[in-house]
């Protein structure tokens, strides 16, 4: 069991800096998810913790030890790779026991640990097969089994589910969460899928272009995004953003539409802002949640609908921008139908129009 600390960690490939001085403190037993768009430096960061990439600057600590110059085998970590990275010439049993064999454990100890891991991951009937004879989901479980047999201090996962189909992914997500509850070890998990991040993490780390944008619990980053990037990246569908100007107690949008200013933001008269509202907080009257304290109403024409069963996504145009709204207890809606929508202002966001940073007090 161990904490992990990243202090001003930098990664450069030649002159190209891809991770810019990031800081992160991970508590013992915590499940931290690094999430961000492809190419933002998540894998690079994880691989620096693993010891598979050199660290160009700063310091990585695992369990109180600076590990910058230690090879992976001395860091007491194990890693699950996106492409499983199984040894094709070894059976499942040999794959699982390989690290213990390298650590010169006795055959009896190896067998015990392998059987235990196989039991946890329901791999027992597959122990004598080779990876070539396994399905994607089974290979993924072997990769996880290989990681857990050693009881490492820290588990590292690099997009372990991205090669699985949607159904299996949901299933494995649950298994990973159960595994964490059982093993209680520190986990750093990389994904580009915000749903995975939200469902798995104790804390989410949102990265963009080699920077950490925000760190927080799933609910925290969902409810209080520090900027428009986090607002649109976390949550599905992405947060609607509309550019406007503060006019007294109201926001005025490009086409003259006005809405009351949401409460709780530090703004000045005449300031250019970006107004953010999630689909969950803009709903047609009669198909919405109970009214909150601060409400506003707008009329919009519906362009397109996406029925999802318990709710329907409505695509409409507000002040010249396409916005997505949600309809509870849905009824069929004609394209072009004009509906009155209510907006829950308490749940809306204001960002600086220039920097995108949240203006929350």
């Amino acid at each position: 069991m161990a904490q992990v600390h990243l202090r001003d960690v930098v990664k450069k490939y030649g002159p190209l800096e891809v991770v810019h001085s990031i800081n992160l403190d991970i508590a013992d037993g915590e499940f931290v998810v690094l999430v961000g768009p492809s190419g933002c430096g998540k894998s690079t960061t994880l691989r620096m913790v693993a010891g598979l990439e050199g660290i160009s600057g700063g310091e990585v600590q695992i369990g109180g030890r600076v590990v910058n110059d230690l090879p992976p085998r001395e860091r007491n970590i194990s890693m699950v790779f996106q492409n499983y990275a199984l040894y094709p010439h070894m059976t499942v049993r040999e794959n699982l026991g390989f690290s213990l064999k390298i650590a010169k454990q006795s055959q009896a100890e190896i067998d015990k640990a392998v059987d235990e891991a196989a039991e946890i991951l329901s791999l027992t009937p597959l122990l004598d097969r080779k990876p070539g004879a396994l399905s994607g989901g089974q290979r993924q479980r072997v990769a996880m089994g290989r990681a857990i047999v050693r009881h490492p201090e820290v588990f590292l996962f690099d997009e372990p589910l991205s090669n699985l189909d949607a159904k299996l992914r949901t299933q494995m997500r649950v298994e990973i969460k159960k595994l964490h509850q059982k093993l209680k070890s520190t986990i750093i998990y990389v994904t580009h899928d915000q749903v995975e991040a939200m469902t798995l993490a104790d804390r989410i780390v949102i990265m963009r272009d080699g920077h950490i944008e925000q760190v927080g619990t799933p609910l925290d980053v969902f409810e209080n995004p520090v900027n428009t990037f986090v607002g649109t990246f976390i949550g599905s569908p992405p947060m609607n953003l509309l550019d406007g100007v503060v006019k007294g107690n109201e926001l005025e949008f490009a086409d003259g539409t006005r809405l009351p200013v949401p409460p709780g933001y530090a703004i000045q008269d005449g300031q250019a802002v970006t107004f953010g509202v999630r689909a969950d907080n803009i709903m047609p009257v009669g198909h919405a949640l109970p009214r909150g304290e601060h409400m506003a109403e707008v009329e919009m024409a519906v362009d397109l609908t996406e029925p999802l069963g318990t709710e329907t996504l409505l695509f409409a145009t507000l002040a010249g921008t396409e916005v997505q709204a949600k309809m509870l207890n849905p009824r069929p809606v004609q394209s072009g139908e004009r509906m009155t929508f209510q907006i829950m202002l308490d749940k809306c966001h204001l960002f600086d129009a220039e920097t995108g940073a949240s203006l929350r007090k």
Partner: protein
Amino acid sequence: MNRLKLPPWLVLLLPAIIILSAVVLIPLVLSLYSSFTSYRLTRPDSIFNWVGFFNYEKALTDVKFWAAFGRTVLLLTVALNLEMLFGLGLALMVSKVTQGQRLLRTMMMFPMMFSPILVGFQFKFIFNDNVGLVNNALQSLGITDQAIPWLVDGQLAMFSIIFAEIWTATSVFGILILAGLYAIPRDPLEAAKVDGCTAWQSFRYVTLPFLMPFIYIAMAIRSLDVARAYDIVQIMTNGGPARRTELLWTLIGRTGYVDARMGYANAMGYISIFLAIFFTIYFFKKLTQSRKELGMGA
């Protein structure tokens, strides 16, 4: 008119069949036939003198033949194993080089570009006891004051031949193993690092199993080469001294052309082919097996 109707596929294949039989089948059948005759180059009509298995019996009971056979197997075993080791080392080093790798790869191929005859002459000169490079170097360095008879002493001559073989053909292993190194997926190697492997253990447990198919392909190719080794030996020692470097094909060549006993030479040739066939089958079996290990192929 009663024209012979051939099926179209046969008509289309006919040119290929004719050419193949002309260049492959006819010489093959002819040589096989002559191995059952007492054919001598000096007496052309002897080709019709059928002697049955006499030539084969003679070869199989001939000490000289078996000595050459044994020597060929020895050369094959020693040269192939050393070439494999050196080729592996070479490939590993080249794969680690970051700059100028293309140039190095091309340079690796150089020895293969020389004709074996040229290589034979080159090493004949290098190992010559009077004017040779090796003796000159050894003497100038004061390591020895005598002329070492590299090509005259039986064992040293065998060593010199093996040396020349290795020099020409290590790059066959080098290139094929290098191709194998390029084909190894990065993931299992990284997994091995995380699993606690040292560089040597990663090599032993992950890299090497991935390379085995490539090594066996190189072995198969080279075993065919060495089993019919002729030119280098012919030039360097001519099978001497006193037949102590006589290999199968130098013996066969001598029997067929110098002694003019073509029928007998062909019989020995056909027996020798089994050696090549044996090694080829053996290495292909190994190849299939090692690919199966890796979960490739059927």
